[in-house]
């Protein structure tokens, strides 16, 4: 950080931002004494969302014109991929000699995929008869980046029923009740499973250190510092390796295969390094491909990993699986707004559950710090673009302060580095010490609330195709609470893995087919959608336009 060219850019904050920080410091003692603002009423929440949440902008969505969810309104970026041609024409795929023939094929390499694989084995499928295939590496996923924690109603003053009510209220009562119920009922079981695998949760005097999240009425957030997602994911990955489940990396699926009866029968993979097609025949297929953050809906930056391009939605939709709640997108209230180099990366909600409060340019609080995420995000957007009380960075981005030094004031010096080591490190790498200075934040695209419609056993509309994790929808309705995504991928990864194993024991595909892809292309054409777009996207392209324009496809 000593490069003279970067002086004033990276060394903490520029002077005009410092002037606003001084105001934050002035008001801090008073704010600490007075406590936070009260949560908003249901009416005030609704009004705020309607006026300021990006989901409520009608012109940023359109109806999808073909397929099982025809007529549903979804972001343009999603519809563009659903209404697209296959990456490889079906006629060019040789289905006659599959490269792999397995009982359970698991598409994905993150949390849901790993849990599904382990429970498929638990349910009696031989490890070598399961195959995980993933676009990047095993563990390059959103699960590994989750920081704040995982909810589970295990304490005496809590219950699955209280958790259920929090989930439904947070989701504006749009959740599929049977899925929400499965989520909360399995919570303690999943924590116990993690304990048996050796996940190191934070404990105090032998009890879990449990905290609130936005929209929770009980403290049920279990954490592992602010590396909760990493800690769970690396243990799961280690166990997949111990058990001996094969994992094929850098080989994303590009289309699902069906058999003559219309049941799921495997997938066509694309080896990213050799550019070969690989056909996998499978008795059961689990979709655990994650979400869509890298579509940058409405131009937002994202917290998501490099491969979060909605491939699973595209493949499942083409094959006939309906989607649910795809009109709703989760913008995490606090993405990094400064420095620009890490714009949009996650500033965990745990910062707020440990006491950091959002404040405006004048150092004044403007919102209860732990509203449900959509409400908190809308309040921050309003503060910046309605009240004009945001702080503008040298690159023109607006944000509000997250007053992180409050954590040290409330819990004592050293707490922040202890409980929020990853967060401290992230800003430290850019010359900012968040124990001393506040952090600048603005909402960032975080989570796909909706997804493939499933039932409580992880079944989709296609027999033999199961789904769990972020690719599936309905669990959270139109807004997910903090700590319920780690729980979701465990609960529904498990249920999908068990269901897939059971299906695989009793069914075998009869012939492999991509006719559904041809039929989908025909439907596009008859709907008048003459496009040359192809999907799945597989990876986003961040190369400079000038380079892309000069590029030759010579090899």
């Amino acid at each position, binding site marked *: 950080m000593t490069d003279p060219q970067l002086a004033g850019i990276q060394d903490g904050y520029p002077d005009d931002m410092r002037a606003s920080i001084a105001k934050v410091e002035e008001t801090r003692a008073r704010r600490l004494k007075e406590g936070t603002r009260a949560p908003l009423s249901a009416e005030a929440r609704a009004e705020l969302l309607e006026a300021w949440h990006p989901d409520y902008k009608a012109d940023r969505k359109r109806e999808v014109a073909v397929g099982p969810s025809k007529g549903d309104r979804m972001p343009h970026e999603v519809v563009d991929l659903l209404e697209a041609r296959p990456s490889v024409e079906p006629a060019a795929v040789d289905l006659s000699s599959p490269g792999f023939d397995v009982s359970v094929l698991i598409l994905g390499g993150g949390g849901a995929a790993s849990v599904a694989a382990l429970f498929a084995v638990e349910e009696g499928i031989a490890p070598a008869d399961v195959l995980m295939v993933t676009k990047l590496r095993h563990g390059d996923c959103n699960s590994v980046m989750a920081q704040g924690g995982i909810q589970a109603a295990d304490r005496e003053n809590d219950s699955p029923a209280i958790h259920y009510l929090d989930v439904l209220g947070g989701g504006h009562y749009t959740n599929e009740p049977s899925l929400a119920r499965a989520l909360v009922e399995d919570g303690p079981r999943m924590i116990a499973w993690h304990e048996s695998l050796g996940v*190191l949760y934070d404990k*105090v005097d032998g009890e879990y250190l449990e905290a609130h999240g936005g929209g929770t009425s009980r403290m049920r957030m279990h954490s592992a510092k602010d590396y909760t997602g990493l800690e769970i994911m690396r243990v799961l990955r280690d166990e997949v390796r111990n058990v001996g489940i094969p994992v094929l990396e850098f080989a994303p699926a590009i289309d699902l295969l069906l058999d003559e009866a219309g049941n799921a029968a495997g997938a066509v993979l694309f080896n990213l390094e050799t550019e070969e097609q690989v056909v996998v025949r499978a008795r059961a297929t689990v979709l655990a491909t994650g979400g869509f953050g890298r579509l940058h809906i409405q131009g937002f930056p994202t917290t998501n990993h490099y491969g979060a391009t909605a491939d699973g939605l595209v493949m499942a939709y083409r094959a006939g699986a309906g989607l649910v709640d795809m009109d709703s997108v989760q913008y995490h209230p606090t993405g990094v707004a400064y420095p620009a180099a890490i714009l949009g990366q996650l500033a965990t909600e745990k910062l707020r559950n440990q006491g950091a409060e959002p404040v405006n340019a004048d150092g004044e609080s403007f919102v209860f710090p732990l509203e449900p995420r959509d409400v908190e995000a809308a309040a921050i957007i309003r503060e910046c673009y309605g009240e004009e009380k945001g702080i503008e960075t040298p690159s023109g981005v607006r944000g509000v302060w997250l007053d992180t030094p409050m954590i040290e004031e409330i819990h004592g010096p050293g707490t922040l580095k202890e409980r929020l080591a990853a967060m401290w*490190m*992230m800003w430290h790498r850019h010359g900012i010490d968040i124990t001393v200075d506040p952090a600048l934040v603005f909402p960032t695209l975080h989570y796909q609330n909706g997804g493939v419609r499933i039932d409580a056993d992880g079944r989709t509309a296609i027999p033999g195709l199961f789904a769990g994790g972020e690719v599936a929808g309905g669990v959270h309705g139109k807004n997910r609470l903090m700590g319920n995504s780690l729980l979701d991928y465990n609960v529904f990864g498990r249920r999908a893995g068990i269901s897939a194993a059971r299906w695989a024991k009793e069914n075998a595909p009869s012939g492999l087919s991509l006719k559904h892809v041809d039929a989908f292309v025909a439907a596009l054409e008859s709907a008048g959608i003459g496009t040359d777009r192809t999907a799945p996207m597989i990876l986003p392209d961040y190369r400079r336009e000038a380079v892309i324009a000069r590029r030759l496809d010579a090899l």
Partner: protein
Amino acid sequence: MADEKLTRIYIMGKAYDVPVGVTIMDAMEYAGYRFIRGAGCRSGFCGACGTVYRKAGEYRLEFVLACQEMVEEGMHLTQLPFTPAPRADYALDDLDPSENVLLQHYPEIARCVSCNTCTKACPQEIEVMDYVQAALRGDVARVAELSFDCIACGLCAMRCPADIKHYHVAQMARRLHSVAGSPTPEHLGARMNELDAGAFDDELDGLASMTLDELKAKYAQRVIEKAQEPATEEVAT
């Protein structure tokens, strides 16, 4: 870009002019690279983008994550997107924590010459050598504590003159410590028993059969638990 001020870096020896104030990862994409390997979470958690560089005129090799480190004038860099480092398979339940199972599974930790090169190679600022020494002593708890922030990028193992696979040793130690040294709170078992006995079924059935207005009223009546500060702490160890 805040401005289009450019600086020169060398990617595997080839010169590119890239913007000031961006990460190595963004700079490589600006230069025209489209990652297959070498990019993962893009937020410093997955360990896919381990990168080494030297600056012109400096003897020292630096170890960073491409998604977290800013470019600087004169960096000569390459990514190390994969580490060939076989791990030892084990069944967690069969391990006897009273024996030095880390040494049994990874005997090469005894080859550690305390050169501290692993620690210098860690982009997470972990005291890697100290945990290898703790592993040698069989101090599983200490290994778990010191290694907790490990993202398994593999740079330590690539540098080690004793061919230790540090991050696999640490992973095993953390799991072992969790099972043997960080007991599961008793109330979790009690809650599981309640769930198995269907203790919450009636209440959940009741909620499921409520009208929307009844649910909303119930939600509005929730009492939010007040946060209390625990007296002593023992975080993630």
